[in-house]
């Protein structure tokens, strides 16, 4: 390829030599540089990918401690926010990934690009109900190739002072929730602050919470995928058939919100809630730190959103904030596993989760000590949790835009129809 382009321009032999020399020099320079890094202290170099920004300093300390504690491996902490796919395509994925586990990451698992960690003793320590979350997105044979490290549970954050002022108890049924909203409204307090400008907040909050408690989301998507390419608006398993009640409830709840919701972003929501302008906020624990940054005095709690008249139906939205995996193409699987086992020691996991308001994924994990989220603990203990309906939908279905349309005056019927049509298109190509 290169020689044919060259011959078109007919450079002199000397020029060719010069260009070749320059290229070789550059390549050698690169090799020397990378060689210098890999031979750091004469140990095997293990690349550890972890780029959740808040946790970077935390994991950097762990890496340093591990490097000091043994002399066989040298772990290099890679916190660059570079995309994963090119690294796999290039054949140089990280040796150990500590990454948010979602539908996108599950693609690597589904295609068998990750190695089986099921034989490690650490794998058997993980709570089966949490390990199941991995398989809900994708499976590869009977392999256990992703080990959950930290789970985040999200519910309705509420302002305790406002609840006490209005004499409202934490609602456990749908009608109690609506009654609470009406009470707040009557007292001139915004019941729920919403931020429709950032579409992900509608999907994460309103959509996931209401659907999660109103129906069996996990089971629905399992059946939907099983149904395969026969999907569509009239199919046996369809959004139109099973999400109608939830969609109508979302619209109903949308009435009890701030008037400027359509133009507010997530950050505006944090500010409004921190200033005590609303009683409830449909966000996960990640928003707690932001709210606290603005108003450290606020007393906060979290409850799981009810969506039926039976308190037993209430469930909590969870996601695997961090999960560990070792790619098949890793050049240092031994080192990767050694560091994985170091990270998976119980006290290391518990310390991480205590600091970042997460739940340990192991059996008999200690309950969270943070009073702002302890309202969710009973649900975690009894296994009443689900991964949000929005997280099952691939990027090819822009459901959060459809949601935005729904909450700003669309009809539930049209919304569900659209989801079914899009899912059918997706299923015909992929399932």
């Amino acid at each position, binding site marked *: 390829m290169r020689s044919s382009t060259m011959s078109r321009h007919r450079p002199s032999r000397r020029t060719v030599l010069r260009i070749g020399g320059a290229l070789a020099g*550059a*390549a050698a320079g690169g090799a020397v540089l990378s060689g210098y890094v890999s031979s750091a202290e004469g140990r095997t170099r293990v690349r550890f990918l972890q780029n959740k920004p*808040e946790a*970077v300093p935390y994991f950097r300390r762990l890496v340093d401690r591990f490097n000091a504690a043994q002399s066989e491996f040298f772990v290099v902490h890679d916190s660059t926010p570079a*995309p994963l796919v*090119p690294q796999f395509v290039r054949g140089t994925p990280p040796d150990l990934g500590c990454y948010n586990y979602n539908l996108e990451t599950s693609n690597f698992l589904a295609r068998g690009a990750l190695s089986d960690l099921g034989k490690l003793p650490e794998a058997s320590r993980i709570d089966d109900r949490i390990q199941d979350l991995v398989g809900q997105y994708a499976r590869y044979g009977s392999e256990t190739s992703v080990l959950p490290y930290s789970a985040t549970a999200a519910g309705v954050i509420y302002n305790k002072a406002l609840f006490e002022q209005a004499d409202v108890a934490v609602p456990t049924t749908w009608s109690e929730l609506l009654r609470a909203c009406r009470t707040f409204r009557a007292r001139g307090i915004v019941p729920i602050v919403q931020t429709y400008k950032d579409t*992900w907040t509608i999907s994460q909050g309103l959509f996931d919470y209401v659907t999660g408690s109103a129906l069996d989301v996990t089971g629905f998507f399992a059946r939907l995928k099983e149904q395969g390419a026969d999907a569509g608006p009239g199919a046996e398993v369809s959004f139109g058939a099973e999400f109608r009640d939830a969609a109508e409830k979302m619209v109903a709840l949308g009435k009890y919100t701030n008037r400027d919701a359509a133009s507010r972003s997530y950050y505006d929501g944090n500010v409004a809630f921190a200033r005590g302008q609303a009683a409830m906020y449909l966000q996960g624990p990640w928003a707690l730190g*932001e709210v606290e940054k*603005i108003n450290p005095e606020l007393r906060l709690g979290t409850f799981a959103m009810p969506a039926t008249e039976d308190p037993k139906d209430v469930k909590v939205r969870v996601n695997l904030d961090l999960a560990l995996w070792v790619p098949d193409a890793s050049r240092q699987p031994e080192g990767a596993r050694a560091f994985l086992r170091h990270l998976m020691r119980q006290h290391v996991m518990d310390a991480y989760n205590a600091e970042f308001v997460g739940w340990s994924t192991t059996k008999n994990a200690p309950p969270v000590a943070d009073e702002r989220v302890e309202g969710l603990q009973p649900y975690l203990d009894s296994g009443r949790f689900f991964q949000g309906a929005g997280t099952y939908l691939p990027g090819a279905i822009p459901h959060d835009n459809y949601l935005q349309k729904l909450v700003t005056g669309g009809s539930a019927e049209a919304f569900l129809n659209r989801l079914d049509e899009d899912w059918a298109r997706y299923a015909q190509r992929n399932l």
Partner: protein
Amino acid sequence: MTITDRRAREEDRPASRLRTGLLAVGTLAVLVPLVFAVLMALKTDRQAASGSGFDLPSPLELGNFRTAWELTDFPRAFAVSLLISVVAVAGQLIVSSLAAYAIARNWDRRLFRWSYFYLLAAMFIPFPVVALPQVKLTSMVGLDNPLGVAVLHILFGISFNILLYTAFLRSIPYELEESARIDGCSTWQTFWKLIFPLLAPMNATVGIFAFLMSWNDFMMPSMIIGDPSMQTIPVVQKIFQLKFSSNYNVAFASYLMAMAPTLLAYLFAQRWVMSGVTRGAIK
């Protein structure tokens, strides 16, 4: 001052006021975001998260620059970005002008004419379409590093640059070259001693475009560069774009640092930049 002078000035006044007004609005359009960035970069976490962007920072927080410096490993990322930009600019200038010269002066031959259209056709292929094959290819030939990114910038720039250069070359009279030949210049010498200097305005245009593209590019380095310690500024700065939490203050401190060299370069090279841009616009 004579009476006629004064009268002429008075007559001009409304028009010149309008012009000044327009210019002032234009200046504001540039200055307001800059002021915003500076104010934001000097705020504490709490003020950045709650207040409006234009509040004056109090207390003044200079530590943001240090945090940003450490989080992004600024000097290293800066050096890599600079390396890519320098190689990309020099490469695009040389490769594209040489190719355009060959094409423009051999227009009567079919091979050259077709190669012109062939190269132009590449304008219709954006990088994202061929991203993954490029990732594979560059890693196979050992170019999954900043040099590879620079090489790709040179290649992806060829089509547009050749369009600019050939159009400009057609306006340079062939007689000039004939006179150089009569004085005994080889083709190579004619190009370097005569044509390349004459291309100066177009070189400025191409150089500016090449610099902006390669300095600001995010996607190509993030996908092509395999070694995380060799990433460029835009890629390492993505660490500030969080979904769940805001640290605008540190982010803006970092953006200011990344902007500084471009601003400085622009202040010093303003004259050439302006002339280069307007020439490019006419062609």
